[in-house]
């Protein structure tokens, strides 16, 4: 099975490797340049003042300017799911080669599980590596860096999202039986799920804290960039009457302000919870795919 899996998926594996190397390479390179340039380089100041002006630094500046690595890390799991996960079983079915593959000397269960393991594991590992490099890149920027803004691009969420996307792809591919529709379904479902989780579910993993302060500038990213400030600040006047979210000439005299937030030290807990949710969903979906392939028959 090992050779067969390699022979069938070697082109995809190569593309994934190239992409991972490009992403990881650019993230790692910038991190390296930043750490060389100065001890700490807060994002609020701007990278150009930190990075040296020699050619190496200029390359790093160019990479940062186009933000490709950051987009790439969000897109990598989706691409994996659509271009590797979706055709995984779908291509066999639409070419009719499942009639060949499933009448050799291996059961369908073994055929699918071995192929899945051999292809998923390296992809998830590559995603984990690149996600880890992103964490390093953020670490280099000092303790005041805002990690929450780039939640989706760090390990362990990146490998978990990759696993989730691959699982979605394989399941859609097995059920739909055609690569292109399966790719489309996978992308839609993945993007929908990621946005849904990020916007609706993520903030509730642990009950947020509420900051109440008379110091009107003590809320928000300016005050504490390491925290995740939820929603908008609520301004109240001295009688406790809610004035609204914005300070403007028409508003009354704000006395104190409240805003809910997640403190910075909870970041890794949130990453772990989200990764666990994604992995759990992925395992469920893979289970469905295996069930479909072994019981469905042609």
């Amino acid at each position, binding site marked *: *099975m090992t*050779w*067969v899996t390699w*022979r*069938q998926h070697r082109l995809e594996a190569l593309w994934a490797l190239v992409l991972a190397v490009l992403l990881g390479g650019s993230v790692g390179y910038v991190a390296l340049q930043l750490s060389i340039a100065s001890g700490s380089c807060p994002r609020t100041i701007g990278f150009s003042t930190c990075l040296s002006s020699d050619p190496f630094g200029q390359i790093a500046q160019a990479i940062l300017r186009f933000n490709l690595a950051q987009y790439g890390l969000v897109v990598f799991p989706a691409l994996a799911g659509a271009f590797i996960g979706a055709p995984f079983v779908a291509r066999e079915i639409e*070419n*009719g*080669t499942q*009639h*060949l*593959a*499933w*009448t*050799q*000397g*291996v*059961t369908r269960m073994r055929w699918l599980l071995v192929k899945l393991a051999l292809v998923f594991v390296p992809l998830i590992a590559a995603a984990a590596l690149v996600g880890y490099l992103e964490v390093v890149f953020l670490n280099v920027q000092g303790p005041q860096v805002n990690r929450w803004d780039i939640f989706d691009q760090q390990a362990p969420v990146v490998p978990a999202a990759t696993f989730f996307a691959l699982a979605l792809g394989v399941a859609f591919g097995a059920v739909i039986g055609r690569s292109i529709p399966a790719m489309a379904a996978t992308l839609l479902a993945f993007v929908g799920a990621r946005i849904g989780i990020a916007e609706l579910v993520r903030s509730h993993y642990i009950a947020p804290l509420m900051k109440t302060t008379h110091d009107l500038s003590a809320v928000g990213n300016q005050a504490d960039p390491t925290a995740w400030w939820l929603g908008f600040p609520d301004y109240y006047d001295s009688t406790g009457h809610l004035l609204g979210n914005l300070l403007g000439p028409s508003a009354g005299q704000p006395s104190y302000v409240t805003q809910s937030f997640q403190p910075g030290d909870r970041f890794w807990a949130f990453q772990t919870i989200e990764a666990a949710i994604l992995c759990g969903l992925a395992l469920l979906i893979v289970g469905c795919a295996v069930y479909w392939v072994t*019981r469905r*028959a*042609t």
Partner: protein
Amino acid sequence: MIAPIEATGLGKRFGRTWALDDCSIRVPAGKIAGLVGPNGAGKTTFLHLAAGLLRPTAGEITVFGRSPQGQLLLLLDRVGFVAQDTPLYSGFSVGDMLRFGRELNRRWDQADVEERLRSLDIPFDKRVGQLSGGQRSQVALALALGKHPELLLLDEPVARLDPLARREFMQRLTEAVAEEGSTVLLSSHVMADLERVCDYLIIIAAGRVQVAGEIEALLASHHLIVGPRLNANARLSGVELVKAQHTERQSSLWIRGPVPELGAGWREEPLPLEELVITYLSAPRAVTLPRPQLEEAAS
């Protein structure tokens, strides 16, 4: 003697359509059985059920006495299958396809398969997608034969081949059978091939088995007699009427049974296999099946 294929009341439903309905067939060992019928009659469905690619909706099918669902691995070693349109991985080289067979099958005779393809001048480094139709079918056959199967299932393997490629395929197939003594079930529309190569015939029409029997016995027991127009109430005794056709002056009767005493004006016309098959296909209600096992045991 365990039959290579035995189906009892076999049925398969897709959605609301029954592709196969109450089929009971026994393919005897050592025979080359031909599976004939209109497109969509259920031939592919039957072959897929025998190969373990489909699960029956009703009834059961056993291969060498075992259910393809329950004991698939044991059967996969003994059954070779060539699907319709001979699916192969078009990006693979011929050598890759052989390696595929070697990796996925427990019992594999690499030397034999290589020799088989070499004698056909099929280069190992050529991509499967670049092979001619005839070469593809030979590679698919070689792959199926590589595990020295006791049962070979072939779904219209020569449908799209030119006459030479078809002949070459049949030559290699019969050669392999002569060597191994395997049982073959092969679906085809090419009556000329079936007549040369098959000794057992199964006709499936509209999901039901219409005919199953040794070809020689079928040919010996069926007759076409032609004579003056019979009136509608005429009855034949001692024979079974498969089909009747009348013109203004003449009646043609396809009968099964011993040739009756032919009266004046009646003569027998030859009834070759192709005509026999067409007769049944055009008379969907007629059924000719082997007598149940009990009777054979008693005699």
